């Protein structure tokens, strides 16, 4: 069977009995066999996946909406009895004794964990290049970066090595690779989705989110993974309805702002043009669209860097090699740099100057968004400042990730949701449109993204570069 189908279509086929869980798993394993080596997407493939598929006989329904559907999981989510590495040699042989809440929820909905995807080690990066297991390749041009840190998950979905995948975003780690790989990436509100069992990077920032082929698929997965988790005190008790019911509502009643300051001065004008065309499309679809002034997103780089590194230095303290994993000398360069800088920004004498100052500017961002979202339902802008750069550009760039993620960092430090949807191409590489809104506006974000997607065809284009056979 074909592996390029959306979740919605696969669910339909399963419900009609036209394919079985086993057919699906076999098809994806074949696709993995064909391309995984070249793209370096999966760090581990679940060896029990065929056996699991054989045990599934029912069809997806309200109780088991994902019954029989294989899903790729970023290797930052713990999976019980299935190796979990965070793409770091520190955890090279780590077999978790428990599963992340998100994984449990997906499994309880009937999904099958297909395998664990590559990432920047500990999510430290926006390129998947800092993985201790080598970079993942961008399928649109394998000499380019896929983005990160959820690069493996993005490429798995873009190249049909999985129908959908889970990622995590601290700032840009879902939306960034989704944009650079030409798929949909949803970063939910901080606290909408449980972090329990997700190896922590920036604890006040981390948000698990799906990477999918379509906006509807993102809504389907969010339905399964969202909600209060008694094991994560920061999850929200805020109720939500079936997100797929929002999709058809259109944008006629919405006020959408183009985030003027997110069209950076030195940005490729072709990127800006794509955003302006998207804005015009929304206007055509009936939304009210204005150019809106916000706090300069570049200040968020500093805030994000300090907060994230401080939290990283703390979160990675537990890796001492006593109870699990290997000792601290196995940390790679990037992790070491982040731990040390974070240790510094929290240390006596510098805590106020860096950590506290950053947390104050964080408040300025939140206040600014609160003001803007009193007048506008949503903001739009580019997800990334440009298309995916070439592999190797991050070399010696201490701040590559933080600079690349400048347009997603303001929402991350403010805990806001956003989605990246394909909105065109620059130099043959995909560009993402970032649609973001206030806390718990996932419903409005999804329907806006859906309206855009249904009126464009960018998402229908598929990468082919990775299929080229290189003849030496």
């Amino acid at each position: 069977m074909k592996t390029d189908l959306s979740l919605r279509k696969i669910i339909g086929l399963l419900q009609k009995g036209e394919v079985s869980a086993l057919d699906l798993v076999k098809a994806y394993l074949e696709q993995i066999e064909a391309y995984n080596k070249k793209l370096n997407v999966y760090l581990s493939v679940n060896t029990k996946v065929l056996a699991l598929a054989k045990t599934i006989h029912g069809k997806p329904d309200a109780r088991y909406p994902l019954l029989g559907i294989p899903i790729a999981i970023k290797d930052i989510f713990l999976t019980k009895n299935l190796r979990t590495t965070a793409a770091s040699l520190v955890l090279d042989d780590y077999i978790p004794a428990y599963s992340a809440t998100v994984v449990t929820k997906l499994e309880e909905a009937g999904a099958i964990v297909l395998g664990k995807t590559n990432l920047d080690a500990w999510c430290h990066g926006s390129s998947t290049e800092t993985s201790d297991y080598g970079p993942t390749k961008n399928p649109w041009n394998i000499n380019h970066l896929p983005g990160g840190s959820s690069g493996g998950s993005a490429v798995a979905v873009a190249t049909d090595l999985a129908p959908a995948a889970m990622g995590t975003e601290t700032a840009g780690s879902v939306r960034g690779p989704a944009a650079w790989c030409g798929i949909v990436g949803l970063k939910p509100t901080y606290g909408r989705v449980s972090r329990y069992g997700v190896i922590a990077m920036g604890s006040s920032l981390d948000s698990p989110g799906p990477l999918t082929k379509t906006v509807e698929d993102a809504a389907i997965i969010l339905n399964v993974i969202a909600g209060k988790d008694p094991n994560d005190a920061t999850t929200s008790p805020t109720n939500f309805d079936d997100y797929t019911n929002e999709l058809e509502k259109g944008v006629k009643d919405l006020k959408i702002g183009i985030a003027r300051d997110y069209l950076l001065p030195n940005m490729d004008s072709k990127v800006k043009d794509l955003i302006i065309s998207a804005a015009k499309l929304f206007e055509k679809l009936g939304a009210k669209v204005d150019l809106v002034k916000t706090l300069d997103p570049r200040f968020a780089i500093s805030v994000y860097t300090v907060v994230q590194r401080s939290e990283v230095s703390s979160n990675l303290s537990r890796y001492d090699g006593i109870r699990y994993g290997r000792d601290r000398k196995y940390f790679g360069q990037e992790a070491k740099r982040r731990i040390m800088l974070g240790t510094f920004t929290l240390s006596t004498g510098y805590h106020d100057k860096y950590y506290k100052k950053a947390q104050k500017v964080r408040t300025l961002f939140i206040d600014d968004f609160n003001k803007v979202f009193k007048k506008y339902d949503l903001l739009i802008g580019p997800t990334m400042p440009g298309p995916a750069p070439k592999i190797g550009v991050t070399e010696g760039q201490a701040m590559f990730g933080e600079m690349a993620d400048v347009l997603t960092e303001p929402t991350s430090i403010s805990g806001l949701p956003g989605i990246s949807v394909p909105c065109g191409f620059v130099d043959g590489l995909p560009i993402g449109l970032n649609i973001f809104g206030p806390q718990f506006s996932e419903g409005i974000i999804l329907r806006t993204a859906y309206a855009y997607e249904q009126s464009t065809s960018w998402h229908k284009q598929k990468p082919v570069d990775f299929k080229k056979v290189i003849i030496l």
Partner: protein
Amino acid sequence: MNNYTTIIGLETHVELKTASKMFCGCPSNHFGKPPNTQTCPVCLGLPGALPVPNKKAIEWSLMIGLAFNCKVSNFSKFDRKHYFYPDLPKGYQISQYDEPLCYEGYLDTSEGRVGITRVHIEEDTGKLQHTTISGSDMTLVDFNRSGVPLVEIVTEPDIRSAAQAKEFAQRLRSILRYLNVSDCDMEKGSMRLEANISLLQEFPISKFQFPINKNKSQLTKLPNYKVEVKNINSFRFMEKAILFEVERQKKLLESGYTPKQETRGWNESKNITVAQRSKETAADYRYFPEPDIPPMVFDDSYIKGVSSKIPELPQKIESLFIKKYNLRQQYAALLVSEKSLALYASDSFKEAASLGVDPDIVAGYIINQKINIDKVKPQDLVKDIKSKSESKVGDTKVIETWVDEAVKNLPQAVSDYQKGKLNAISALVGKVMQLSKGSADAKVVLNLLEKKLSSSKN
């Protein structure tokens, strides 16, 4: 020779006896359990695990603070305290830094009021054990204790003597037991004391202008060093350790040295404090607000509710015993040390008052005859005392001969009593009763013994 004021502050850690741990559902009763059998992802510090605070532990901590006359913060939060040690699974301890649950309280002792700086909640660490495995020195780690709720109570440097420190700690333990929130067993480690000790040289006030008030710390200046003494696992050791430190520091100061600011441990076999090996790098705990736990906000009605759950506390009962029943202070203090005993005594006194028996005699009976309060009903006890006193030999001449014999027979008890171990008198009373085959009037015996022992002193 200079005069010195002893400056002591105490830090007390007590494990709460909640059913579950501070941030996870593992049982918190860890004593004597096989190693690493009471852990989960949270308290073992596994990747991805997150803490969720125990409601009861928070409530109990507030209760403790209120019992020590503290203010309760309307806003409080957890912070991460970072350091590396094999018993600390996450590389940080979830504790409280600048927004403790409770602050600015006090506890009165017979030598004056002791300020309580703060009361906060944190998690306990795992336990280390030193051993040799095939010839090399190794440390074994058990995480059963990891994550058990631990309350820290910090005093102001208001304590002026070893005896006051001991009294303070005893009163503190007694209150905690009344609250029924901790076993406070020092041997099992559910109560741990640390003393910060330093000496302040007293100069003529006219010259240096800082008033020294020995009861309440209105010291405008503290010594420029302090010595922290750890590893104290009984009140007696604490007293000894403080006395030792005071002498040690005095000697140093006399010879012109400032004692080194350091952590020392009490070595109970040698009866000395010993400098603990200090790590080369100074600690920098890099506190920051725990991002995994939302902050805590307590409104006044909630605090009132917690406050209403606090039972009557020993000091109040003690003064009631003295005032209402005319008890000697020493008896009153002993009887309120445990809540069950205090209740028993209180019931007995009510009975005694109605039967016309002197409650002080009843108190003496309870203490000296080691009455089993679980078996003997207060009514029966008082009836017994009344009937005995009516049929007793009350002739002092006769009793005196038994007293003399008892004193001769039990020289150890006599010297213990004279050294201040007042309980030792019960052995002598027992001896007299034995000699009299139970016929002597206990009140007369006690009076004669007390007279005898104080007159034969020196």
